[in-house]
Structures are given as C-alpha cells and as structure tokens.
C-alpha cells in the first residue's frame, strides 16, 4: 500500500465498518447478558431486549442463582473437576511425552501414533460404552467418574504437544545431571519438568478450558443435580425456562460460567491461540 488511491480509501472504510459490525456481533450478546443478569422478569417481558437495566440493579440475581439455583454447587464442582483432571492429565501426559521424546524403546513410535490417531476419532462413538463402563465401576453420578473421563480425554493432546516440547530441550542438560548422579526420575522431576513449564502451562490452559466448558460427557454421565458442573447445570436451567421463566437468574448463572474463562483468556491469550493451532494442525 505505498500509494493510497481514492478507491483503496473507500475499500478500507468499508472493511472498517464490517470489522466494527462483527465486533459488535461478538461483544453485544456478552454485554447484553450482563444487562440481563441485572433485570427482573417484568423488564424482560415488557421492555426492549436492548434496554438498559433499571435501577435499582438486581444484584441479588447473582446471590439468588448462587444459592437457590445451586449454581454455587455447580461452580464448585466445575472448579474441583477442572483442577483435578487437569493436574492428573498433565502428570500422565508429561511422563509419557518425556519418555517418547527422550528414550528409544520398542513401541516408541507406535505409542506416539496411538495418542495422535485417537485425537481424530469422534468421542461420541465411545459415549454409550463409557456410560455403562462407569456404571459397572459404580462411578456414574460421581465427580470422580467425571474426573477420570476428562483426564483421559485430555491425555492425547498433552502427549502430542509435550513430546514436541521435550524434543526441543537440549539433551546436554539431563546428560550432565545423569553424570552428577541423579536418577532418571530425579532428572525428570527436578530438571525437565521445570524446564518444560511453558509447555505445561500451554497444555494445562487448554485442558482447563476444554474441561470447564465440557457438556456432552457430563450430561450423559451425571444425573444428580448435586454433581452437575456449570455447563450441565446451565443447560438444565435453560430447558426448565420453558415452564418457569426467570431470565435474570439464568443470565447471572451464564455470566458466572463465562467470567473465569474470560479472565483466563486475557491472561493466557498467546498460549491459548498457539495451543488451538497446535491441536488443529497436528
């Protein structure tokens, strides 16, 4: 663009308008759920959807939904399930990834390909057997069951990304540690894991997002409202809206599930975008 003709100025202006429109399309539903979460039913039914919430703002929608709609329980369940599954998946994936990246043994490549190939298989094929597997193990309707399934679902991505990461770490480091008398375990936990922190954070953040947002497995494996995670709970709340319309609390609950995700996004943007690219490119 070294010379600006009239045509290209017009073109730029048109593009600018389109970009702004799309930004509105993205942001407006979010802004609007903030407004919605502060309204009562009357404002939903009588006023225009884009009207601002009236004073006094109904902050009690949040406490109401937290306590009376059990969103507090869902939130804590989500927090517990997400944290434990992520940590467990990171442990299981990083050990395997390190071994694949650093040691030559029979089945090394097979193992790697197994994890890689499983990422292409639609999870829904395993949905029905998983349901019966968990009920045979007495794990249906338990958070432990969800944690185990979510962990398993996130292992392959971790193995895939972390294997690549461990391969980039210089070999000399663990070699010199070996000479100093550290065991293989010591080398891994005291030297390699700390070095792999950027990779672990990237994978961990992707795991956190996918588990926090997961709905399909959750809704099939858990039927007990006291064990719902946020996505399950909100989907159920929404389905019930057909019979009992309480929009304010619904949007308050929705926001409580979005806010942690947005915070994570603004802190770890770079890791999230590169993590998603890694997952898609394979």
């Amino acid at each position, binding site marked *: 663009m070294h010379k600006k003709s009239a045509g290209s100025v017009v073109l730029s202006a048109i593009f600018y308008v389109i970009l702004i429109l799309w*930004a509105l399309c993205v942001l407006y539903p979010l802004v609007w759920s903030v407004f919605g979460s502060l309204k009562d039913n009357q404002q939903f039914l009588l006023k225009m959807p884009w009207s601002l919430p009236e004073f006094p703002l109904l902050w009690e929608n949040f406490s109401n939904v937290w306590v009376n709609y059990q969103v507090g329980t869902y939130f804590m369940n989500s927090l517990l399930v997400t944290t434990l599954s992520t940590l467990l998946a990171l442990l299981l994936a990083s*050990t395997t990834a390190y071994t694949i990246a650093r040691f030559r043994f029979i089945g090394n490549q097979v193992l790697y390909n197994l994890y890689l190939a499983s990422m*292409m298989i639609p999870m829904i094929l395993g949905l029905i057997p998983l349901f019966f597997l968990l009920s045979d193990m007495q794990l249906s309707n338990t958070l432990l069951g969800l944690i185990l399934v979510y962990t398993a679902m996130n292992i392959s991505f971790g193995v895939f990304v972390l294997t690549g990461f461990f391969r980039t770490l210089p070999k000399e480091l663990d070699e010199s540690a070996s000479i100093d008398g550290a065991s293989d375990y010591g080398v891994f936990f005291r030297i390699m894991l700390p070095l792999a922190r950027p990779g672990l954070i990237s994978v961990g953040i992707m795991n956190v997002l996918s588990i926090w947002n997961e709905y399909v497995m959750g809704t099939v494996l858990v039927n007990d409202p006291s064990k719902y995670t946020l996505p399950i709970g909100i989907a159920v709340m929404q389905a019930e809206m057909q019979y009992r319309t309480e929009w304010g609390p619904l949007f308050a609950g929705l926001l409580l599930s979005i806010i942690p*995700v947005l915070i994570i996004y603004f802190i770890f943007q770079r890791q999230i975008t590169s993590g998603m690219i890694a997952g898609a*490119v394979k």
Partner: protein
Amino acid sequence: MITVNNAPSIDHAVGKPKAGKGMNWKTKRKLFIFVFTVPTLLFFCLFMIYPIIQGLYISLFDWSGGSETKSFIGFDNYKEMLNDPILGHAIYNDYFLVFWKVIGIVGLGVFFAVALTRFRMKGSGFFRQVFFIPNILSVVVIGVLWNYIYNPSIGFLNSFLSLFTEKKVEISYLGDEAYAMWSLLPPAIWAGVGFVMILLIASILSIPTELYEAGNLDGATQWQQFVRITMPLTWEQIKVSILWVVMTTLNGSFVIVWIMTEGGPDNATQVMGSYLYQMGFRQYHMGYASAIGALILILSLITTLALQRIMRRDTYEMS
C-alpha cells in the same frame, strides 16, 4: 558420597553398560520407561480406546441397555440404516452444516485476516482479541445466548425486525422447520471465525513483504495481490482451517443442535450425533445408536481423506 559408578548411562540411544548398585542400569532404565508409560497407557486404554472399540462391538447387537436382552444380530443395525429416512436426513443436515460452515467460517476468517494485516486497520489488536472470544466459550453458553437472540416473543432478533414493520414480528426461528437448520448456522459460524482468522494472520505475516512490494511496483491491485500472493502462500493454513471445520462439525456439531433444538421440530434439525443421543439415551436402542457412532467415524475419516486429496491437487495446479 555416591560414586560415579552409580550414574545411569548418559547415552540414551545406544547406552553403555555400567555397573550399578543392586539392579544394573539396563533394568533400571527399563523399569523407568515402564513406570512412565504403562500407567498412562492403561488408563487411556480403559477410558478412551476400550469405549471406542466396545462402541463398534455393540453396533452388532440388538440391545436396550438392560442386562438380559443383548442379542447378536450381525450387521442388521447397519442394514436398518438404509431404510431410516430420519438418518438420511440427519446425514444431509451434517453436510449442510459442513458446507455452509466452511464457506462462512473460512470465508470470514480469511477476510478478517487479510483486512487486519494487509490493510493495516487501526485497532487491529483489539479486533483480533475480540473476534477470538467466541472460540473459548462453552457450546452451552453459545447455545443459551443464541436461544435468547432467537426467542420469538422477547428475543433480540424479532424485536429488532419489529422496529421496521408495523406488525410485531413473531418468527419462531428454531421452532419452524423452514428456518431451523439455517438458524443453526449463525451461532456455529460466530463461534468459529476467530480461530481461522488467528491461523491465517500468523501465516500472512510470515509472507516476505518484498513480494507485496514487487506487486505494488508492477501495479497489481489489492485483489490481484490477494489471488496471486496471499492465497497460494497461505494455502496450507486455509487447508488446515477447512479440515478443522469439517472435522469439528462432523464430530461435534450435535452439541449445538442438542442445546438449541434437540433435533426438532419433528427431526428437522437432527444431525447424526444428536440422533445417536436420542436413539441411545431416549429410546434405548443402544445397538443402533452405536452403529450411528460407527457411521460418524467412517464418514468423518472418508470426508477428511477425500478433502485432503482434492486440496492437494489444487495446490499443485495453483503453483
């Protein structure tokens, strides 16, 4: 205090035997590899591989999910598919979504990426950040937001349209067979564009600027530069984007369907995944549902392989 004798081999690939205390280094190393891979593998097999294989196996049975009534029927579930008009319609709907999502997501994604890089828009960082937000939201959140936009009586869309009409618009977007499938597209496209944009921006920024400068000197228009420089050099990423949309749609489009329409009205928006869910967990035809799962697997593999072939040839012709 520990002698150098105790150190394990420093050469992972070949390994030089050295005397160790108790176990020799080779056994120790083998044990280490075992401890670091086998538990993960067993865990993964139990909760991922076994269910998938078991899914294929169940598809050969007539089974309601109870303990007594499981009878082997070979490929009868698959034969039954041929005479199931709902399944046919569901497959059609899946590819309807694939087709329009590829056009919408990849089209808009490429457009935004080009606008934000080649046209050096002010605030491009802001747009980039914002456009990506829907990609990190749960499908449940997306479904609830758009359900409200589409709500016939108090929703945003009808209220907005009513501003321009005398009579209040009361279209039931998700409840009317004529609109329902089309209404599923905007949320699906809305949720995917940001990722393709990010992928393409990275790719466009890696194109040497000299190429565009040379294009400018030759008097090439922005459009010509896009067709001759940007498209061929980002083709790899465009291909990845297309395959990404196809895979995620065939393997996962049922979630948004399930949240927004449950496959209704009257199965009009049923896709393979939502039909599987309904067959399995609403009508207890576990065998038939599993056969649908196998079909999803087969179709998604065939489609991606076919697309990879087609797009490879295209690249070849373009260069």
